[in-house]
């Protein structure tokens, strides 16, 4: 089966998306952009392939869906089990790297033993907790190993450090040091193995399927046996220049976002993308061609990373910021949107007795205000408007945006796709498809 791959190497996350010949989305994958762009791109693609396989498995099981009480539930269970499997593997990797790092000669020998103890404790608990993290309906702080493992590590680590009379910074450092290594260990090709293991496990916990075991395995094997031929890859995004692609395989992220938004919502005329460190305002014509755009320059103030700093400062997950801000009752005006100062401003305001929720709402509004000025610089907002990029996942940002659009531009349809973070990758994959057609 011919596949067209789009990879969007963003400053914070790397997204991959696979299209088939009919331009239907086969699968999507995301990972955090890490120190090694090649690896980030491969991981994202690998994730997209995993996602593709799950979709293929769905397709291949659909004819026999009567075997299942609920096929979707089974599939999501399968995916969760798979994720857990993956998580445990990475956790084991992290643990061993942590131990190696902790035994380096940076630490005194007495410290070494304490640290090793602490690590054992931490990882023990992490392993214990893991199944819960991937239980049905569980909410995770993020979908990335770095963040999930990291936040728990910090929490457990802080407690153990206190208990063992160890400096928390030491433990933190061991983690910081190790996570980079682990992220750059990239085992290719074992996804299939893990998926089969996950399947076995699923079958074990759902005894009623025991009798159908063979047919299910066969179907899944079938899905895995479909050959995915990577016909054309197009890369885009912040880091595109560092992708190991030739120039023909690279498109500007502006065009990709414009096109991606157009594919999702053909009536789109204005696109706003707020990513980790850049914000883009794009105008597209009825055929998805970019007619003008604006980007922030040289200063990352008011971009997604800003929210990241805030989340760190408050020690909550990115996902939680939006909902918290939604509880605001008062308007607070925030003036400085320097990303790095965000934490300080938050503290300042708290000290002045302002409510956390109100401040957060103010911060979200500040980000959106900056975006509004880019938008108006690019030519304003015309119907329909599509909001993409990571920050589009944030309901408080969306609310502020909708309010301001209403105030300044009147009634405008605002599109936000749950998969909006993949807009750039979708555009890139579409370009890949087109490039193939042109060749033909």
């Amino acid at each position, binding site marked *: 089966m011919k596949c067209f791959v789009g990879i969007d190497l963003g*400053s914070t996350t790397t997204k991959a998306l696979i299209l088939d010949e009919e331009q239907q989305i086969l699968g999507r994958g995301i990972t955090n*952009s*890490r*120190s*090694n*762009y*090649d690896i980030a791109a491969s991981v994202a693609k690998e994730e997209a392939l995993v996602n593709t396989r799950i979709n293929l498995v769905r397709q291949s099981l659909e004819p026999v869906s009567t075997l299942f009480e609920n096929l979707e539930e089974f599939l999501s269970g399968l995916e969760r089990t798979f994720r857990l499997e993956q998580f445990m593997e990475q956790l084991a990797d992290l643990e061993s790297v942590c131990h190696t790092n902790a035994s380096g000669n*940076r630490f005194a020998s007495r410290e070494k033993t304490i640290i090793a103890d602490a690590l054992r404790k931490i990882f023990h608990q992490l392993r214990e907790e893991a199944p819960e993290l991937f239980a049905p309906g569980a909410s995770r702080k993020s979908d990335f190993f770095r963040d999930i493992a990291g936040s728990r590590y910090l929490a457990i680590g802080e407690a153990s450090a206190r208990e063992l009379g160890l400096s928390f*910074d*030491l433990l*933190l*450092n061991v983690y*910081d*040091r*190790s*996570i*980079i290594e682990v992220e750059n260990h990239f085992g290719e090709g074992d996804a299939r193995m893990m998926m089969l293991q996950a399947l076995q496990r699923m079958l074990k916990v759902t005894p009623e399927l025991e009798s159908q075991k063979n047919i299910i395995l066969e179907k899944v094997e079938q899905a895995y046996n479909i050959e995915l031929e990577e016909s054309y890859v197009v890369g885009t995004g*912040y*880091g595109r220049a*560092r992708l190991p692609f030739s120039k023909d395989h690279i498109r500007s992220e502006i065009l990709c976002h414009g096109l991606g938004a157009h594919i999702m919502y053909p009536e789109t005329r204005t696109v706003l993308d707020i990513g980790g*460190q850049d914000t883009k305002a794009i105008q597209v014509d009825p055929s998805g061609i970019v007619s003008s755009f604006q980007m922030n320059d*040289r*200063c*990352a103030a008011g*971009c997604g*990373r800003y929210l990241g700093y805030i989340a760190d*400062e*408050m*020690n909550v997950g990115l996902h939680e910021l939006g909902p918290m801000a939604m509880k605001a009752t008062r308007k607070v005006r925030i003036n*400085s949107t*320097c*990303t*790095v*100062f965000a*934490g*300080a401003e938050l*503290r300042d305001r708290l*000290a002045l007795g302002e409510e956390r929720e109100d401040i957060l709402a103010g911060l979200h509004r500040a980000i959106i205000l900056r975006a509004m000025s880019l938008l108006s610089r690019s030519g304003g907002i015309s119907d329909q408007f599509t909001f993409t990029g990571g920050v589009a996942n944030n309901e408080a940002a969306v609310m502020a945006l909708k309010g301001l659009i209403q105030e300044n531009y009147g009634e405008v349809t605002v599109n936000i796709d749950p998969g909006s973070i993949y807009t750039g990758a979708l555009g890139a994959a579409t370009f890949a498809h087109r490039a193939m057609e042109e060749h033909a």
Partner: protein
Amino acid sequence: MTITAGIDIGTNSIKSVLFRIEEGAIEWLAKHTSRIRKRDPNQLAEEDYRWLLKKTDIDPEEVEYVATTGEGENVDFRTGHFYSMTTHARGASFLEPSARSLVDIGALHGRAISIDEHGKVLSYKMTSQCASGTGQFLENIARYLGVAQDEVGSLSLQADDPETVSSICAVLAETDVINMVSRGISSQNILKGIHLSMAGRLIKLLKAIKVRENTVLVTGGLAQDEGLCRALLEQASDQKLEVQIRSHIDSIYAGAAGAAIWGEFRHRKLKQAEASPLAA
């Protein structure tokens, strides 16, 4: 004899000192630093202060003047407040009497101050409202590289081929750093590169206030970062600024110490005023 306290409330940490001052002779009684780390600074300041008193077995009544500096304008147990350039200047002059200027680098600020032999601020220049080249920025990068704060200095000293950091913005520089890691540049060289870029900017500040010679004392938390101090030296010589750059082990206490010393000064003044017949 006067016992005074100086409390410097920063954005990252609180520094407090307790001094006994007699006829100009200044004696350290105690000192303490604590990172604020998401706690209420004013409350923390009070805890630290109490802790100092307890440790030295001094009764609060015996302390004649509690001087705050930094963001301590709202601390209610203070006697008076001085602005942090005033206190850093005085503190620097106390720690290093030959200092005629200082570079104060904290979590969210960097500034150069030139002073006279009595620790009077003559001129100053600070980085603008932008976090490029501050302690917080360095901390982020260090975390990214998996390097502990107190290791940063020694790693930077081992650099053999420092990498140039071009971004002006602290956030975009993070991406620069990611780029570097992916190109296989060592942490040593990256850190040194960042140190050099920070130092370059700080030396420019020094030159901007027309510091030409003599001793420069590095104060603030980053004075403890030997890598940065070395980079400052290198940049100074690169930019043909003939100064001696020193750091003092108590550099981080410059603000607190300065506050305590000024506190004693004000206390004397106030007492004189009280004693003078005109006061009535």
